[in-house]
């Protein structure tokens, strides 16, 4: 009798534990399924939105081709830019780790940049180059729509079209990969490529600087002389190639710097060391940073920005050409505020022009100011050098001031009067 009770109790305990485990496991499975369904629904939603926006984009491109009236043309171009941007956003919500190509995104970016350029430059709707580009975009948009439709209409036997465990499901992966591949030839088509989005130059530069000279260049930047143990490694791939990575130790910390193997210029410099409590004067650090830049050969610079985070000050200096600052190019100097030592230097933006960009006929000061909105409360104005949407250096007026409580800078081309861009400051 006692044995029977023991067996019954054991059996009941096993059933209870097993049942609980099953119920818990089942709950986890249901939770996982619900999560997977939700993820799939989000991917599906992004795909359907992308398709809808591509169809709208194609419609707007057709409308732009069908009218010759500049006002209507601009309105349709505005629609094209809007739908291209929306399409880019939709695509950013789809799985991105299937391919490195991202041709769809590049196509939409190209369309967006190009129509924006046409709108700024008041492009003639009837110009042959415009019509040719619009036709090309229209056809490509049709290809994208066909590709997206194939994925949208693919049979879905389960809720998990997109995911397969933690991986992207083969059907979705192959569909997206095929679509990217089909657009590959478009991206290499130079005739419809906007100059604003053109690829990086890959022309190899010659190696004209020896590794010992690269080390000497960094020696001068670091202000040290015992560099017998330092290493200079040549790199021939990537932007700025060829260049040397120079590394070594000093009493104060370890140095890592990059020197162009073509020009011998310092590309970057970084001293790694512990940063102590900030006690160095910030304004003095700015003066020191400018003196350090002068020591490196950059004499004509103006301080454009300054900041202070975690006991480290960062100062941005813009090069000056004939007394005008170049806004899209800067030298950044990093100063440790524990003792005022320069611990970093980086170049940013494009190389500045070698001479002042020419202006054949500048608009008057009043005509330029008339381009500003009535709510813009201007605080200062100055001539600057900036890059226009075509990638050319031009002279421009920079108007700095506030809209309500927010500081802004409006940059207007000195010659065309076109607004080149608006920067929010601070």
């Amino acid at each position, binding site marked *: 009798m006692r044995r029977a009770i023991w067996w019954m109790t054991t059996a009941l305990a096993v059933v209870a534990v097993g049942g609980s485990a099953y119920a818990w496991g089942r709950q986890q499975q249901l939770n996982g399924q619900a999560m997977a369904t939700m993820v799939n629904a989000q*991917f599906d939603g992004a795909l359907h939105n992308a398709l809808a926006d591509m169809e709208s984009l194609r419609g707007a491109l057709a409308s732009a081709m069908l009218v010759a009236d500049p006002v209507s043309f601009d309105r349709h171009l505005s629609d094209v830019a809007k739908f291209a*941007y929306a399409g880019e*956003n939709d695509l*950013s919500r789809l*799985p*991105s*780790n299937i391919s*490195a*190509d*991202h*041709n769809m*995104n*590049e196509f939409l970016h*190209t369309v967006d*940049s190009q129509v924006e350029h046409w709108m700024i430059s008041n492009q003639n709707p009837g110009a042959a180059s415009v019509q040719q580009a619009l036709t090309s975009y229209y056809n490509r948009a049709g290809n994208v729509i066909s590709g997206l439709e194939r994925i949208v209409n693919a049979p879905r036997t389960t809720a998990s079209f997109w995911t397969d465990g*933690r991986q*992207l499901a083969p059907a979705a992966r192959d569909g997206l990969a095929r679509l990217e591949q089909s657009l590959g030839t478009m991206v290499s088509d130079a005739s419809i490529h906007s100059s604003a989005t053109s690829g*990086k130059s890959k022309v190899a530069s010659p190696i004209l600087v020896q590794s010992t000279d690269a080390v000497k260049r960094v020696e001068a930047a670091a202000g040290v002389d015992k560099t017998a143990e330092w290493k200079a490694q040549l*790199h021939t*791939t*990537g*932007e*700025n*190639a060829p*260049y040397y990575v120079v590394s070594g130790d000093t009493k104060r910390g370890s140095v*890592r710097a990059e020197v162009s193997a073509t020009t011998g210029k310092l590309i*970057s410099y*970084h001293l*790694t060391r512990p940063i102590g409590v*900030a006690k*160095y*004067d*910030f*304004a*003095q650090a*700015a003066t020191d940073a400018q003196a350090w830049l002068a020591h490196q050969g950059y004499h004509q610079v103006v*301080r454009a*920005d*300054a*900041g*202070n*985070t*975690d006991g*480290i*000050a*960062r100062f*941005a200096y813009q090069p000056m050409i004939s007394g005008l600052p170049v806004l899209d190019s800067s030298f*950044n100097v*990093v100063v440790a*505020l524990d003792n005022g030592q320069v611990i*970093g230097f*980086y*170049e*940013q*933006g494009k190389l500045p022009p070698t001479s002042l960009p020419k202006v054949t006929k500048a608009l008057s000061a009043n005509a330029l100011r008339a381009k500003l909105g009535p709510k813009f409360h201007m*605080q*200062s104005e100055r001539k600057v050098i900036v890059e226009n949407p075509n990638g050319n250096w031009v002279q421009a007026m920079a108007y*700095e001031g506030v809209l309500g409580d927010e*500081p802004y800078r409006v940059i207007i081309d000195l010659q065309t009067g076109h607004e080149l861009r608006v920067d929010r400051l*601070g």
Partner: protein
Amino acid sequence: MRSGFRSVHLGKWIAFTVLTCALTITSLPSQVKAFTARNLIYGSEGYDVNELQGRLHLLGYYWGKNDGIFGWKTYWAVRTFQYNFGLPVTGDVDMATKQALVKATPNWNYHMDSNGGTNSGSNAGGASGLSPATVVAGDGFSHGSAGLSASDLNLMAHVVYGEARGEPFEGQVAIAAVILNRLHDPKFPKTIPAIVYAPGAFDCVNDGQINLQPNAEARRAVADAVAGWDPTHGALFYFNPAKTNNAWMWARPEIMTIGHHIFTD
């Protein structure tokens, strides 16, 4: 009896001293806090900047918040003040500008500012008297830079910490640089959040490590990348060879290896 007399006498003396001190303190004019010796420029922070903003506000030149941060509005206010008072218009606050300001605002005191009550500490004389805004910056970026907002920079710091903590410093800068390279590449979305949260783009988003609180080193790495340091020289992708078997990733042309990551074009 004699000791009792002494106690009463001592008590009177103490009471008299305390009363005298109290009267002296209350009869003193409101203290005018003067600038410290340090110069102030755009980007300066601290109690001196609070004082600068307070004095400029009193004169009607400054209309922003008294936050102790020398920003654009303070800069323009200083320039206008310098112009109107016949000083060289630089936007930097040197000794001459400070003297002119103090002279122009003899009645200013820190109680006049909305947050002046917090400024009466001994830090005023310190070269690095940091404002509350800087304390906030200790946990994250409090303002943007190079066209990126503070939230963009903080998000990048989360990715750097989630993806590359434990890597050498340049390896952390490299992660931030890859995000910025994507931002400037037409193949990728146009905003930092869209790049970071693109499905499958970053492992730390998938496994939740992006939610870890970044440290100062990660923030410094982001700041250096934003300042222009790109140790990857234009890389758009990276992977850890020990953890990745993705065929197309391995097929990408390698630019360089930093720490445990291979950076590719």
